[in-house]
C-alpha cells in the first residue's frame, strides 16, 4: 500500500503509462496497427450500406468506379446492377445484367409493366455463410462488420463462392484466390466513402456506419420500409434496400 497520496498518484501514473505503451506495442507487433493506420479503430464502427431502389437510374457508375478502384478483373464484379422486368404472363421476373451493367443498359421501352434497377454487392452479413465454411480462416467478419479476405491465407478452394447466397464472390484469375467487395476497406478506414457511393450520381447507395449515432442510416431505417435480400436465410445482411420489389431475389 502506498503510504501517501503523492506516492499513490506517481505509481498509478507509471502503471497507466507502462500498460498503455505495452498494449500499443503489442498491437504493432501483432500487425493490428501501424503508424499510418493507427487512427482507425475497427471497434468503433459497424459498417453497412443503404440502397434506395427508387433512386437507381442504372447508369453503371458504381460498377465502373468499383472496377477501377479495386482493379477488378474483367468479367468479374464486386458490385453490379440488375434490371428487372415483372411480366404478367411469367412466373418469375426477367432479370438482365449485361456485363454487370458496367456499360450501362440499352434503354428499355417496356410499357405497363413493373421494371426497375437493383444494384447489388456483398451484403457484409453479420452471420456470413462464407465465413462459416472457410476451412483456413481466410474469410472473416472484421470487428467493424466488414467481411474481408486474407489473401495470404486463401487456398482458393471455392467453398465460400458456393456458400454465398448472393453470388458476391469470384476467384481472381490472376491470383487464384477468392476476392469480393471489401467495402473499399482502404477508403473507409481513412474516413472516405466507398468508390461506388462516391460515383453514384443520385445518392441511391450510401455507406452507413451503424455504430455512429449521427449517421443518417438510423433515420433511413426508421422512416422507410426497408428490406434486406433473402431475409429467410438469416444471414444478418447489412445492405438495406428501400422500396425493394418483392420479386427481387
Amino acid at each position, binding site marked *: 500500500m502506498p503510504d501517501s497520496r503523492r506516492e499513490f498518484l506517481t505509481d498509478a501514473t507509471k502503471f497507466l503509462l507502462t500498460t498503455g505503451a505495452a498494449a500499443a506495442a503489442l498491437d504493432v507487433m501483432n500487425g493490428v496497427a501501424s503508424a499510418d493506420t493507427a487512427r482507425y479503430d475497427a471497434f468503433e464502427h459497424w459498417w453497412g450500406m443503404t440502397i434506395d431502389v*427508387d433512386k437507381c437510374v*442504372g447508369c453503371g457508375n458504381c460498377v465502373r468506379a468499383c472496377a477501377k478502384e479495386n482493379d477488378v478483373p474483367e468479367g468479374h464484379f464486386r458490385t453490379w446492377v440488375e434490371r428487372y422486368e415483372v411480366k404478367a404472363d411469367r412466373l418469375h421476373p426477367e432479370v438482365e445484367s449485361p456485363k454487370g451493367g458496367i456499360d450501362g443498359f440499352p434503354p428499355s421501352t417496356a410499357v405497363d409493366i413493373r421494371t426497375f434497377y437493383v444494384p447489388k454487392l456483398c451484403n457484409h452479413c453479420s452471420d456470413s455463410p462464407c465465413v462459416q465454411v472457410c476451412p483456413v480462416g481466410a474469410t*472473416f467478419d*472484421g470487428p467493424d462488420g466488414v467481411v474481408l479476405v486474407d489473401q495470404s491465407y486463401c487456398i482458393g478452394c471455392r467453398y465460400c463462392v458456393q456458400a454465398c447466397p448472393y453470388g458476391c464472390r469470384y476467384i481472381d484469375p490472376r491470383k487464384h484466390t477468392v476476392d469480393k467487395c471489401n467495402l473499399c476497406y482502404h477508403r473507409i478506414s481513412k474516413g472516405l466513402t466507398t468508390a461506388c457511393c462516391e*460515383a453514384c*450520381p443520385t445518392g441511391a447507395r450510401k455507406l452507413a456506419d451503424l455504430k455512429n449515432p449521427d449517421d443518417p442510416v438510423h433515420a433511413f431505417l426508421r422512416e422507410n420500409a426497408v428490406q434486406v435480400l433473402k431475409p429467410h436465410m438469416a444471414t444478418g445482411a447489412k445492405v438495406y434496400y428501400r422500396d425493394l420489389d418483392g420479386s427481387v431475389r
Partner: protein
Amino acid sequence: MWKDRLRDSGHLVRLLLLVAVAVSLFLVVRAAVIPDSFGQYGHYRPGALADNQKHPLIHAGQAECTLCHEDEVKARNAGKHSGVACEACHGPLAAHAADPDAHKPVLPAVTPLCTNCHEKDAAKPKWFPQVASKQHSEGMDCNSCHQPHQPKL
C-alpha cells in the same frame, strides 16, 4: 519374468517414438507458421485487417477536389447536380489530386456522359429527368444548351 512378457514390445516402442517425433514436428511447424496473434479477434489473422487497408486510393473523394476547385463546386452546388460528386462524371482522379501537374484529367465526352443517366428508359424512376436524346436534341451536343455544372436552361 516381466522382461519375458515385454520381450516382443520393442516394435511398439519404436512406433511410439516415431509418433512422438511426428507430433512434435507438427507442433513445431505449426508454431512457426501460425502467428501468435491468430485468434485474437476471431478465427483469423488480425494482420489481415491492415493488409486490406494497404490498397492505393484511385478515387480522391469530393473533399479532396473541393480543396482546389472551390469555384466549380460552388457553381455545381447551386444547381440540380449538387449531389453529384466530381468523380462521378470526371472519373477517378486520386493521381491528379496527388500531383496536379503530372496527371492532367481529360474532359469526358459530354453527350454520352449525359445520356448515360438521362436517356429515356422505362426502368428508371419516374421522378428522374429523362429524354429520348435523338428526338430531344436531334444530334446536337447537350452542352450547346445545358451547362453540365448547372444543367438548368
